[in-house]
């Protein structure tokens, strides 16, 4: 293993040597997407563009396990990495057959020729190739098209609902994980941080499994209501609602909430105990919603602004105990039912589309 460290220390690693390879299942590796490794899902991977015999373009994610060998406790790291890879692959396969979730087109491993020996075996997953993600799409346009934004949010809600129906919570729903497909609209992807009700994983143990910049406040406090999968569903609802802030204000709901709470000057009142501090968070969130409504109204969507902020208010309530459907009193899966919000967003979208006629 020492040799491996030295061998891959300066030169390319197996996962970086796939360009030009025939994967043996009808897929051919065309080009590397990211020249350097990017951390996703807690393990390192390298991205490629691949093409099938039929001419379909896909996105290949290759596992770079050499990164694990470089760590002092490499056996643990290797186990963690492979477990995460297997988990992501299994979840993607489980959920990828639905129309609003990015599909897995193939998976397997390929041996890279050269001096890598047995270490040249690279595991991969091939996903549908998207045109881009929400963040990249929004970056292209200065003004937003309300109908397009709402339809995107509706698609994201459908995707999340499809995951929940399969017993999977995404946990890392953020603009860069909602992908844009020219023919199919938006789909959600990247399951590296998800939780599967039927398949325990390391993700279940993290208090903030996804991106902390987008995480719901209870996760930042380490607060859990039920301590089971229901908490993950509550977090998913928040993450979905927070996309509204990103679409219309281009800022994360969590960042805006933190800023609004900071502006209250309530430092001394915040105790670090979520149950006590949630009152302050709710005040800050009320302010954040005010900014959202203000922006919608300024952009000319006066008729729908109130309806939108009420839905977002339910989805992103900083208190997971009151988040979601207010008619359901106790925290349970039904309270955080994404289907309800998919319908509400669809209703708003249709109103917006009718208004455009």
């Amino acid at each position: 293993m020492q040799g491996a460290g030295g061998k891959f220390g300066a030169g390319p690693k197996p996962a970086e040597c796939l360009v030009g390879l025939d994967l043996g299942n009808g897929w051919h590796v065309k080009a590397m997407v990211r020249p350097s490794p990017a951390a996703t899902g807690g393990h390192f991977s390298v991205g490629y563009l691949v093409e099938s015999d039929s001419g379909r373009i896909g996105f290949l994610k290759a596992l770079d396990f050499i990164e694990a060998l470089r760590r002092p406790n490499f056996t643990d790291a290797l186990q963690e990495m492979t477990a995460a890879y297997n988990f992501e692959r299994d979840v993607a396969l489980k959920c990828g057959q639905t129309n609003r979730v990015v599909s897995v087109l193939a998976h397997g491993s390929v041996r890279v020729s050269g001096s890598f020996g047995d270490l040249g075996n690279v595991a991969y997953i091939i996903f549908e190739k998207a045109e881009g993600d929400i963040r990249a799409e929004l970056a292209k346009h200065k003004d937003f098209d309300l109908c397009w934004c709402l339809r995107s949010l509706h698609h994201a809600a459908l995707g999340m609902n499809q995951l929940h129906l399969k017993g999977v919570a995404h946990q890392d729903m953020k603009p860069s994980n909602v992908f844009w497909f020219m023919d199919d609209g938006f789909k959600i992807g990247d399951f590296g941080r998800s939780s599967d009700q039927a398949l325990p994983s390391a993700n279940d143990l993290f208090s903030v499994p996804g991106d902390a910049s987008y995480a719901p406040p209870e996760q930042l406090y380490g607060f859990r209501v039920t301590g089971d999968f229901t908490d993950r569903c509550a977090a998913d609802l928040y993450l979905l609602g927070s996309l509204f802030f990103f679409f219309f204000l281009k800022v994360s709901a969590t960042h805006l909430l933190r800023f609004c709470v900071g502006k209250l000057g309530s430092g001394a009142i915040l105790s670090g105990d979520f149950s006590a501090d949630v009152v302050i968070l709710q005040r800050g969130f009320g302010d954040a919603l005010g900014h959202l409504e203000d922006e919608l109204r300024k952009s000319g969507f006066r008729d729908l602004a109130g309806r939108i902020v009420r839905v977002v208010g339910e989805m992103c309530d900083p208190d997971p105990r009151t988040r979601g459907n207010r008619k359901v009193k106790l925290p349970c899966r039904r309270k955080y039912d994404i289907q309800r919000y998919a319908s509400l967003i669809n209703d708003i979208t249709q109103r917006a589309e009718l208004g455009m006629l």
Partner: protein
Amino acid sequence: METLDSYRQVIPRWVLFHRACETMVGKGVKSVLSAPDGARGELDRLRRDWTANKSMPYALDLLGVALFSDEEPSLEAKEAAKLVFRETNEGDVRRELASVAVDRDAPLTQNIFSVASAGNVKVLRDRLKRFPRDPTTWMDLGFHLALLGNLRNARRCVAAAVGSGGAHPFILRSASRFFIHAGDPREALHLLRGSSLSRSNPWIVSADIAISDGFRINAPKVSVARGILGSGRYSAFELSEIRSALATIEFGAGSGAKARKLVGESLIEPTENALAQAFWAAGRGLVPGVSVDPKNRVNAFEARARNFVAREKHGQALEQCFEWLKFQPLSARPAAFGSFVAAVFLERHEEALKLIDLAFPASGNVGVLHNNKAFSLVSLGQIEGALKEVECARSISSNRVDSGVLEATMGLIEFRRGDVEEGRACYKRAYHTIRKDELLLGLLCYYWLREEIRIGSVSLADAGVSKLEVKSEKDARTFAKVAKILLKL
């Protein structure tokens, strides 16, 4: 006239939420909502993303993390902030977020919604339509409705606030103050004692003690308070009101040394309420003086007013009373205290009436204010108006001292109406009711003597006083000695 040293406890204040936030100092929000470990790697990734794609979403992603990072703002963050400045207008929250992310000392504007809501029931209602799960906004709405005298709807708002945010001291203390305002201190105590914080939180325990002691209902939780003081878990600021409340009880029990020690400790880092309590105690001679200057303390209007009175700077004390009333519009005390200062020490009756009228919408059922208004009206020659106010006060006031004070005011009215005999009879009845209170007795004798001198029945020399003037409580007390002469008339 109501005097300045009626019993006082550190009854919790009820103020608008943004005002409560102003008075709090200490650790910042960042310590609780800071990004978890790994924020450094996150910043690096966001910097790379921004460099590759210089647009608003990437800029705000980077600035949002930079805002809560301990690192110095990077060049990339500064560049991203410039883009946000270009793309947004003045007053846009994103613009402000960007400026704070790259300059921690950038001035923060007050939250526009909080400021607007301070004077606007409609804005508060709109906020609640948008997000009904906001207990502090329910409490603010209740505050405004209580100010307008709409206690029924205010009670509903308070119930909604307690229902959704009853685990927070701000909500519990504000709600308990509402029940006191509504004349139901038992309900206030019931609410505090039913909370999960009732045995562990210094803010709740101090409120409990102050209400139990102030209204003489139930035994104060002294042992719980001592346990909290000995726990070493709380800052001097958090403990200031509990120490103050205990000190007041110790004064009542005659344990002056213990009380003075507690008052001293309460002033290490006092709330404005604890500071006001210390000045009140100093005014009664219970502590030798107050070492803390209230001059630059946020919202310490009451403490400043009491301090100015002690230093016989009554004009400045009156100014502070107006500010105190703005800060505590649901309390009758600023108007009672201020109208006393204005009428007795300054003889500025118009200002006394102005202060009372400002307090009336919320405190119209407080007999003392009607009495003080009657006094100022009769002093300005408006006898009919004064009589109406006395009638109002009589229908409200129930205790013995209040009725004695009212008799004295009635005596003044009768003198001004020309009915000297009835005036004297009123003053005599008042004397028998309030003779044990040296200050009230001194004031009664002063005004009675003033009327007798005005009609020429007595001279200053007959009374054995050198001048007919009251510039301090001490001056007022000196007039008690003329009671014997006056009672013979």
